[in-house]
C-alpha cells in the first residue's frame, strides 16, 4: 500500500467517524428518493378528521396573553338561577386554571400553557392582590393544599411547597415528592387531589387523541402515598381527566373525562364517571360514552365489558374541574350535588357549554339530572370566558376560574 492510498483510507476513516450523524441521513435520503413508496395512511391520531368543509379548518381556541381588564370582564353577561349572584373575585389572573384554598384563606390558582405560573390571591381589604409564587413551571395545572403545604403537579413531577401561606413572598425551592410520571406534553398536565384515604390521586392521560398506550403507564388515575411511595392504579381506561372529587359521604372517587376528537360533531360525549371498585376500566380507547365502540380500536371489544359513565356531559364539551357542594350557603337541593366546569369545545364547529353545570344525585348515588348553573359566556360562536375549575369556599360560596379572560368569579346566594 502506498503512503498516498494509506492517507486516503485514513482520511475516509476519519470522515466516516466524524460524520456519523450526517452520513447515514444522507445515505438514506439518496437511497429512498426514487423508490420510497408514498405513505398515504392517515396518522392514527387524525382518524376521522374531515378533509373538507368546516371541520377541516378547526383549530384550538386561543386565549389572549393579556388578561381582560376588570371593567371589561363578562360579569354582566353571566346567567345564574334565581337568588344567585356573580362577582369578580380576582382579575388579572392570566390563564387561571386550578383553584385551592389555604387554611389561612389564601386562594391558590394554577395555570397551564399560557402562563406556567402558580398564583396566590391574597385579600387586601376586600380587593384581591395577585401574587406570583412560582413561575416558568412546565404546565403546572395540578395543585392541592394539604396541612399547610401546596402540592404542584407537572406532567413529570409532583412538587411540595411547605408552610406556603407563611412564605408567599419567597416560597423557596420545593421538595420533589414524586417523579415517576411519563412527562408527555399531550394530556400530560394534571389535576390532583388528596382523597379521604390520605393518598394523593394523580392521573396520567393518553398521550394522544386516540391510541392504545400501555395501561400501566398511561390512561389511568393512580394514587400514591404523600411521600411518593405505594403507587396503585385506581381507575383505568381514562383518556384525560382534568377534574375529580370524592363523595363527601361515601368517599367514592368521581371524575370527569374528556373523550376523543374528530369522530363527529356529536360523538362521543364527554363523561362523568364514578369509581365503585379499585381498578375499574372506563373504556378508553375501546369504548366511548358507554355505548359506542371506537371505529379503530373498538373491534372485538364490547362496551358491556367497561364501566358506563354516571352521566354524559355533551360532545367535546370539555368538562374539567368538579366539586361536590359541601357548603351550606346554597339552598338544600344543592347539598351533595356536583358542580362541574365545562371549558367549551374547540373540536366542534358550533361552540357551546363554557359554563358550570350541576349534577344532582339520588339517594343511591346515581345522577338524577344535569342542569345548567352558570351560563352566558358563548357569544357569536366564540367564548367570552371559559370556566376551568370550581371551588367551594369555607363560607359556602363557589369560586369559578376562567382561563380565557384571566379571572376568578365568586358565586353567592341570598334568598
Amino acid at each position, binding site marked *: 500500500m502506498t503512503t498516498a492510498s494509506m492517507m486516503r483510507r485514513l482520511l475516509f476513516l476519519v470522515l466516516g467517524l466524524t460524520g456519523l450523524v450526517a452520513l447515514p441521513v444522507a445515505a438514506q435520503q439518496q437511497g429512498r428518493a426514487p423508490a420510497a413508496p408514498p*405513505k398515504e395512511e392517515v396518522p392514527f391520531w387524525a382518524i376521522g*378528521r374531515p378533509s373538507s368543509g368546516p371541520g377541516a379548518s378547526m383549530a*384550538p381556541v386561543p386565549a389572549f396573553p393579556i388578561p381582560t381588564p376588570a371593567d371589561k370582564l363578562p360579569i354582566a353577561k353571566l346567567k345564574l338561577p334565581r337568588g344567585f349572584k356573580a362577582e369578580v373575585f380576582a382579575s388579572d389572573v392570566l390563564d387561571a386554571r386550578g383553584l385551592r384554598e389555604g387554611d389561612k384563606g389564601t386562594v391558590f390558582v394554577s395555570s397551564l400553557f399560557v402562563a*406556567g405560573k402558580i398564583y396566590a390571591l391574597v385579600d387586601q381589604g376586600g380587593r384581591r392582590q395577585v401574587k406570583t409564587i412560582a413561575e*416558568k413551571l412546565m404546565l403546572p395545572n395540578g395543585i392541592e393544599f394539604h396541612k399547610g403545604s401546596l402540592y404542584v403537579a407537572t406532567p413529570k413531577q409532583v412538587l411540595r411547597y411547605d408552610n406556603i401561606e407563611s412564605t408567599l413572598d419567597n416560597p423557596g425551592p420545593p421538595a420533589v415528592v414524586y417523579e415517576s410520571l411519563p412527562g408527555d406534553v399531550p394530556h400530560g398536565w394534571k389535576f390532583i387531589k388528596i382523597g379521604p384515604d390520605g393518598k394523593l390521586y394523580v392521573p396520567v392521560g393518553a398521550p394522544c387523541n386516540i391510541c392504545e398506550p400501555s395501561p400501566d403507564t398511561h390512561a389511568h388515575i393512580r394514587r400514591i402515598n404523600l411521600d411518593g411511595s405505594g403507587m396503585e392504579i385506581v381507575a383505568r381506561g381514562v383518556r384525560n381527566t382534568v377534574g375529580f372529587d370524592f363523595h363527601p359521604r361515601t368517599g367514592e372517587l368521581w371524575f370527569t373525562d374528556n373523550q376523543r376528537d374528530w369522530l363527529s360533531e356529536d360523538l362521543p360525549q364527554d363523561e362523568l364517571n364514578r369509581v365503585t371498585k379499585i381498578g375499574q376500566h372506563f373504556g378508553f380507547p375501546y369504548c366511548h360514552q358507554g355505548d359506542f365502540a371506537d371505529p379503530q380500536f373498538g373491534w372485538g371489544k364490547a362496551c358491556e365489558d367497561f364501566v358506563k359513565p354516571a352521566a354524559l356531559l355533551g360532545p367535546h364539551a370539555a368538562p374539567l374541574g368538579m366539586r361536590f357542594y359541601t357548603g351550606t350557603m346554597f339552598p338544600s337541593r344543592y347539598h351533595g350535588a356536583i358542580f362541574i366546569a365545562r371549558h367549551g369545545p374547540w373540536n366542534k364547529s358550533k361552540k357551546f357549554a363554557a359554563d358550570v353545570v350541576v349534577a344532582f344525585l339520588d339517594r343511591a348515588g346515581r345522577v338524577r339530572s344535569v342542569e345548567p348553573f352558570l351560563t352566558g359566556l358563548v357569544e357569536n360562536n366564540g367564548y367570552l370566558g371559559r370556566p376551568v375549575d370550581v371551588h367551594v369556599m369555607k363560607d359556602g360560596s363557589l369560586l369559578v376560574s376562567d382561563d380565557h379572560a384571566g379571572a376568578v368569579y365568586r358565586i353567592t346566594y341570598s334568598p
Partner: protein
Amino acid sequence: MTRRRAARAAPPSSRLGAALGLLLAALPAAAHAQTFEARLAACLACHGVDGASSIPGTPSLGGQPAFFLITQLFLFREGRRDNEAMTAAATPLTNDDLRAFADAIAKLPPPSPPATPPDPARFARGRAQAGRRFCGACHGADYSGREQVPRLANQREEYLLAVMRGFRAGTRIGYGPAMSEALVGLADEDLRDIAHYLAHLPRP
C-alpha cells in the same frame, strides 16, 4: 437594504454575531426614550425591514398574524422561549408595547419564495407529509396562518426545521398543546421535507 446585502455576503457565524450585536446595542435604548419607530427598526434590523429575514436562524415576520406575534413576544418576555437575545429584547415591554409591536409587525408584507427553486422530490414529499399531518387545517390551506397560528409559507427553511425539531423534542413548549401532538412519529427527514416544502411554496 445595504445592511441586508452586507449580511448576505458574510459567513453565517459573523452574520449572526453582527445581528446579535445590533440587537443588543439597541436594547438599553429600547427600554426608554427612543421613539416607537426607532425601537421597531431595531427589531427589523434582524428580522428584515421588508418582512423577510436574511439571517439564518432568525425568522421572517412578514405576514404573521398579530395574535401569533403577541403570543411570542409574551413568551419571550416571560423567559419561556429558549432565546436569550429575544428575552432581553422583550423584557422591558409593557402589555401596551406587546400590542403595539405585534400590530405594527403584522403589517409587514409576507416574504417571497426563495430565488432558488425547490428540489422537486423533496417538495413533493414535504407536500404529501404536510397533507397527511393536516398542517393546513390550522395554519391555513395556503399556510398563511390565522389568529394564534403562525404563517408558514416562505418562512426560512432552517428556521422551520429548528422549530419543528424543538416541538418534537419537547424543548419548545408552545402556546398550546397542538404542535407537540401534531409531530408525533415524524422522522427527522420528514421534518426536513416539510420545511423544504413550506419554505418554497409558490406565491399564491
